[in-house]
């Protein structure tokens, strides 16, 4: 079966493997510690681990877009900022 019509490239393959690995890791985390770890953080409403991953990924996407729109084509600083943001979300949200 050929997937050439999907126009795969190495960077996009790495991107999707990372996303699927994150989701798989969340599944393992849930298996080891069931219940989703609900808590009320700085947003003042209850979030689970899945919610925090969603907020992290969505926020990271917008950080990258903002960097592209305002900064330039190099995304390494945007990636670093997104990692810091995601750690913040998992710690405080």
């Amino acid at each position, binding site marked *: 079966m050929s997937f*050439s*019509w*999907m*126009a*795969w*490239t190495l*960077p*996009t393959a790495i*991107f*999707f493997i990372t996303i699927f690995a994150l989701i798989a890791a969340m599944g393992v985390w849930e298996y080891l510690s069931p219940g989703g770890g609900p808590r009320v953080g700085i947003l003042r*409403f*209850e979030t689970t681990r899945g919610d925090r991953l*969603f907020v992290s990924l*969505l926020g990271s*996407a*917008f950080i990258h*877009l903002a960097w*592209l*729109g305002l900064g*330039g*084509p190099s*995304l390494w600083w945007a990636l670093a900022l997104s990692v810091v943001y995601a750690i913040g979300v998992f710690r405080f949200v």
Partner: protein
Amino acid sequence: MEKTWNNKAWFLVLPVLLLVAFSAVIPLMTVVNYSVQDTFGNNQFFWAGTDWFVEILTSPRFWDALWRNLIFSAVILAIEVPLGILIALNMPKHGLGVPVCLVLMALPLLIPWNVVGTIWQVFGRVDIGLLGYFLNSLGISYNYTQNPTHAWATVIVMDVWHWTSLVVLLCYAGLVSIPDAYYQAARIDGASRWSVFRYIQLPKMKRVLLIAVLLRFMDSFMIYTEPFVVTGGGPGNSTTFLSIDLVKMAIGQFDLGPAAAMSIIYFLIILLLSWVFYTVMTQSDAEQK
């Protein structure tokens, strides 16, 4: 009571997962792949990196279409939600009027989107359309093909005509599920009509309103067929919403790379706004409990 865990249930979810994978995940992955490449057809691609994203994010054409879309969705929600609630509140709850009203309300929803566009395209025409002819005979120089304000008004009225029924039916479903005991208690307490609405009907409609707002926001933000059939995005670019602009770019110009980048930005905006709507409405619901 303790929950019974049965991992075999996961296999029952498998068909849906496969369906979503083929209808949504794989196409989305393909769009992401296209967004970082350029192609001239024949399945040949050239690496472009983030160029298309920079091009779209710095393009006034994209921001203009986005603002038009946001304003359109805001106007649609501001009209359709209160109007839908008002109609649902005044619909009969018993007797022959119920099926008659329900059928009448369901009719616009059963009409295909391109047919709705064609109906309003003809209806608004000055030469043969009832609306256009009537407005002009009143001395109003209405012409949606030349005047951007008239084009906007036509598209908004058309959407209200087409989709308010959905809000009505959802609200009506919420209203009929309220037990009579609530109304009897309110009558005994001497509650006003407004109090009954504010403290009984509105809280009971909240869940269906959440669905209505989400559906109407997402639909209006992705609107394509009706305005395309009525105005074609004009006059000028006055009714060119994101989806129309996207199709022009992808099919009209065959700029698949920029169109894919625009699709991803468009998708992320819808995802963000839907999440905000959903979170705000479910949290205010949770706070009330």
